[in-house]
């Protein structure tokens, strides 16, 4: 059974249809890249998947997250799915993290919540140990300092690692990453991509990776869905789509990415 199964999803607001008839699914452990440029509806689709659309959207179609219908579900029905089934890492960790809360305390929140949901006693020392092991898991250095730091006191790459650690704390079956490296430097981007790929393999998590950057998607995803103006125009295995794009628009994206790639000379 699919972990996430989106069928005929149509999202509209203010008389405009922003996403029309989008269907795709993600199997447990699958890594799917959602490719699109600005305005393609890729982020809206991801928000809809976890029931976080802004007010005023009308939703048609069906979104099944771990078998449960999200379209028309009550807030109370969706809350238990967030985190446990799907956790999200957003583009800008500076706005995703609470600026007034130390890193250690922020990472502890999802840890505590997970234990409470499971009906387990929450022991402060055990939570602190788990927070440290999560921060180690995302390869953060100098953890003693980081747990006591506020988000502004650490670098952008470190903040994104903290955001990933918080998502991992939920032990989700599916990780949704919306442009998680776009705001980062190239050397940091590579480290975060390698970290994500490694975590996916080791934890067996599924990944929905949203990006406009083709080579970045190729590095983490097995399959891709290409969106344009709210509609799916192409899908398939990542190498197959990049080697022989069928839709003209996909081809223009692949050509542009290939031209920039060629300018760099042969890959080492």
């Amino acid at each position: 059974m699919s972990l996430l199964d989106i069928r005929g999803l149509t999202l509209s607001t203010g008389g405009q249809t922003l996403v029309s008839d989008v269907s795709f699914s993600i199997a447990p452990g699958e890594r799917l890249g959602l490719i699109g440029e600005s305005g393609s509806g890729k982020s809206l689709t991801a928000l809809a998947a976890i029931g976080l659309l802004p007010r005023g959207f009308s939703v048609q179609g069906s979104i099944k997250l771990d078998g449960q219908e999200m379209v028309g579900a009550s807030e109370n029905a969706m809350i238990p799915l967030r985190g446990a089934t799907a956790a999200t890492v957003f583009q800008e960790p500076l706005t995703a993290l609470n600026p007034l809360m130390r890193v250690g305390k922020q990472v502890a929140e999802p840890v505590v919540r997970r234990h409470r949901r499971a009906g387990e006693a929450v022991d402060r020392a055990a939570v602190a140990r788990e927070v440290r092991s999560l921060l180690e898991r995302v390869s953060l250095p100098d953890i003693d300092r980081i747990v006591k730091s506020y988000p502004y006191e650490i670098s952008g790459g470190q903040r994104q690692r903290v955001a990933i650690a918080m998502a991992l704390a939920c032990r989700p079956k599916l990780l949704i990453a919306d442009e998680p490296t776009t705001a980062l430097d190239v050397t940091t981007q590579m480290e975060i991509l390698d970290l994500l790929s490694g975590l996916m393999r080791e934890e067996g998590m599924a990944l929905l990776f949203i990006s406009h950057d083709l080579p970045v998607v190729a590095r983490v995803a097995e399959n891709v869905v290409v969106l344009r103006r709210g509609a799916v125009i192409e899908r398939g295995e990542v190498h197959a789509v990049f080697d022989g794009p069928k839709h003209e628009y996909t081809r223009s994206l692949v050509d542009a990415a290939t031209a920039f790639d060629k300018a760099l000379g042969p890959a080492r």
Partner: protein
Amino acid sequence: MSLISLDNVSFGYSRKQQVLHDVSFSLRSGVNVGLVGESGSGKSTILKLLLGLARPTGGRIQFGDAELNPRDRAFMRDYRKAVQAVFQDPYSSLDPRQKVQSIIAEPLRALRIPGSHQEAIEKALRDVGLPADAIDRYPHEFSGGQRQRIAIARAIVARPQLILADEAVSALDLSTRARIVDLLKALSEEMTILLVSHDLAVVAALCEEIVILEKGRVVESGKTADILENPKHPYTQKLLASVPRMPA
């Protein structure tokens, strides 16, 4: 002959906080240069100095046969005729309450350029591939790529010798980015471009020479093709190895 040269330029907000150390490179007419570095490398600070928005705390910036002096108003007017800028985000670099006509005319007015402003504006619009009727519209009526074309039209309208482009394509979608790089390439027939960017692929596509910055120091500089083929400094090697590549 060099258009602008930086000789041992240093800059710091205080003695403890030095942002640039002994930066030297020069821009020659007709040779596009890419200034590459990650956040904190000092690339934006160099741009600030080149725009005359701050003064070096050490060393000098030479423009032609004079030293760049932001306090000399007459000099700065000549300098701005020769050196114009395009910024990263066309959503914040264009005044939302001015029509395109008035946005593009601004340098002509401010620099008191003689001749027909209307003709200059029309030519700039043609050069950047925007329709002539764009002048009566406001920035919000245009897409991101078109707005960046408006910003480029404003930069070229006074026919400068040098364009300082600060991450000028970084905020654009891939297909738009490719088209704006093509536009800048075409414009560099006429003028020289200094492209400040973290994106090596864009720099490789547009610039013949490259200057690599790390923590306020130039670690490597030279011909783009040579550096891409045989990067010498470990930081350049790391930077190149980090660029995600298309699958073969």
